[in-house]
């Protein structure tokens, strides 16, 4: 029975909206613009923030890593595991996994004829690594590793420090598990430049077999398997699967475990969107209060009659609320209708911010931003905007409620 009344009242509320077409259209368009801006802002912001994290992860960390148990806490060179190829194959069978690459890792020293510097030596399988991270695409000189030879990739910054160029030789030294110091000569094959200066100063990539030889590791040893997933959000579930499938001697970590600060930063950026919601909400609410108040005040005698014939305060409140809520819902619908094509276009072509690309690159975002529509955006817009509209009706509705029928009709 309540619902039936509400439907009847909704019809009345709807017609009331169009009594002052101009006023309603003005408020309505403010809501439409608000929703339009919010949806695009929110999706672009989400896309940007996700891209930022993704770019960071694609730099080196990947989505999931597998080590020997305890390696993350204490990344020592003797903490390798064997049968890396077997584990890799097993991991690759999970449908969430897009690519897997093994790594041998060691802290070491890189020396040229002029200078030396501490580095993280990363032994990689070049093709596998290039499927997981962007390293192959970040070369600014020379070429990517392509085999077993004694070649090394270093950052541009490190090269400057060591005063070496492409083709020059450098000596890599690292402590081996047996306590000896391994050393080998490598030829600089390529120089990379990434978004991270730190990375460019400290990372050095060599073929995995060279790394094993340098460190005196068995031929199937690795310190790390790094996994790229089809979707970063699958990391936690995959971790749980892998933990039960793999032996206890191995540890499985997600990027959340490895770079919690980056994840926090992303979440913080996402939260900042609520500030925009607040600003737009506040801007909208004053327009709505103003319009609804005018609509209510000019109808006080009418409300007086309604109260006189026995309409309850609750129903009168409902009537005024519905008028505002209808504006909110209609505005949200139209705002979505307007923003979806734009969203679809941007999702396909991206928003090219080449003009600001330098600054963006520094943030690790990339010049083209692709908006990302999540359920949260849909929910936010459909919840927050109509709610704001309803809140805007509270004071006007309160005024309508306090109509004394006798007074209101006398004022005529």
């Amino acid at each position, binding site marked *: 029975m309540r619902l039936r*009344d509400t439907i009847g009242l909704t019809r009345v509320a709807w017609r009331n909206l169009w009594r002052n077409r101009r006023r309603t259209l003005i408020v309505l368009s403010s809501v439409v613009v608000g929703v339009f801006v919010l949806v695009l802002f929110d999706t672009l912001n989400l896309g940007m923030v996700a891209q930022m994290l993704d770019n960071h992860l694609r730099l080196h960390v990947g989505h999931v890593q597998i080590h020997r148990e305890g390696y993350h806490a204490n990344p020592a060179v003797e903490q390798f595991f064997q049968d890396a190829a077997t584990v890799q194959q097993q991991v690759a069978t999970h449908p969430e996994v897009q690519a897997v690459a093994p790594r041998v890792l060691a802290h070491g020293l890189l020396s040229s004829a002029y200078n030396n510097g501490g580095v993280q030596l990363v032994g990689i399988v070049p093709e596998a690594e290039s499927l997981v991270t962007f390293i192959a695409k970040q070369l600014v000189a020379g070429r990517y590793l392509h085999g077993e030879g004694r070649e090394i990739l270093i950052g541009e910054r490190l090269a400057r420090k060591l005063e070496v160029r492409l083709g020059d030789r450098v000596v890599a030294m690292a402590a081996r598990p047996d306590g000896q110091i391994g050393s080998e000569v490598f030829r600089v094959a390529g120089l990379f430049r990434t978004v991270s200066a730190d990375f460019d100063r400290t990372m050095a990539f060599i073929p995995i077999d060279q790394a094993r030889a340098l460190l005196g590791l068995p031929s199937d040893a690795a310190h790390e398997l790094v996994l790229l997933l089809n979707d970063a959000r699958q990391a936690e579930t995959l971790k749980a699967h892998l933990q039960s499938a793999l032996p206890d001697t191995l540890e499985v970590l997600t990027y959340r475990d490895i770079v919690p600060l980056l994840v926090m930063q992303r979440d913080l950026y996402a939260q900042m969107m609520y500030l925009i919601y607040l600003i737009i909400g506040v801007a909208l609410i004053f327009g709505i209060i103003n319009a609804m108040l005018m609509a209510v005040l000019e109808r006080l005698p009418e409300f007086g009659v309604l109260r006189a014939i026995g309409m309850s305060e609750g129903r009168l409140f409902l009537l005024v609320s519905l008028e505002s809520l209808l504006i909110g819902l209609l505005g949200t619908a139209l705002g979505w209708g307007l923003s979806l094509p734009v969203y679809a276009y941007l999702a396909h072509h991206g928003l090219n911010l080449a003009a600001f690309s330098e600054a963006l690159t520094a943030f690790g975002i990339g010049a083209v931003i692709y908006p990302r529509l999540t359920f949260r955006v849909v929910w936010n817009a459909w919840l927050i905007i109509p709610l704001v509209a309803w809140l805007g009706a509270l004071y006007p509705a309160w005024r309508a409620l306090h109509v004394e029928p006798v007074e209101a*009709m006398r004022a005529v």
Partner: protein
Amino acid sequence: MSAMAIVQAEQVHKIYDEGAVPVEALRGVSLTIAPGEFTVIAGPSGSGKTTLLNLLGALDVPTTGRVFFEGQDLSKLSRRERARLRLYKIGFVFQAYNLIPVLTALENVEFVLLLQGVPERERRRRALEVLEQLGIGELAHKRPHEMSGGQQQRVAVARAVVSRPRLILADEPTANLDSATGARLLDLMEQLNREQGVTFVFSSHDPQVIERGRRLLWLHDGRIEREERR
């Protein structure tokens, strides 16, 4: 208190003291309205007609004295309870602003039934029935602005009777009408009174309304000065 009474006022005083000087609009009015009456409260402007009608219709409460509706002391009811009483027991026809402008005649008549929670189908049937009965079926789908003042007032009467109230109060229903139109409105209400026993109380200073009253209460300066029955 008469068992038959629909509404009864006992020594009612009403003082408005919002303004600079308190105004005593009613100074001790007692009256009883019995079922089937066709009563006119007459009196010059400012004599307290509207004030009295508002008290009888549970729209307001007296400053002192009591008003009983079907034996129920209105001063003991909350605002909400009085609204409910009006919804189910009393019909109103005001001088103006009777109808909701965005609704058609039919929808306006239905609106009271909507508030009563009557199902849509029955609402429609009863509303149409009343409009037909009052000979204004052809107005069903017109909005107030498409109707003349007299037509609007007749729709207001239809809205007042549709919920079959115990009492219909009409505050100067003909004030905005020319005399021919006013006469037809009165015909309509007389007919409802005669054929269906609907109880009416009017206020008016319009001679043509006054002459139709079967019971006449002359109000002057907030007192009933004279009563006539015809």
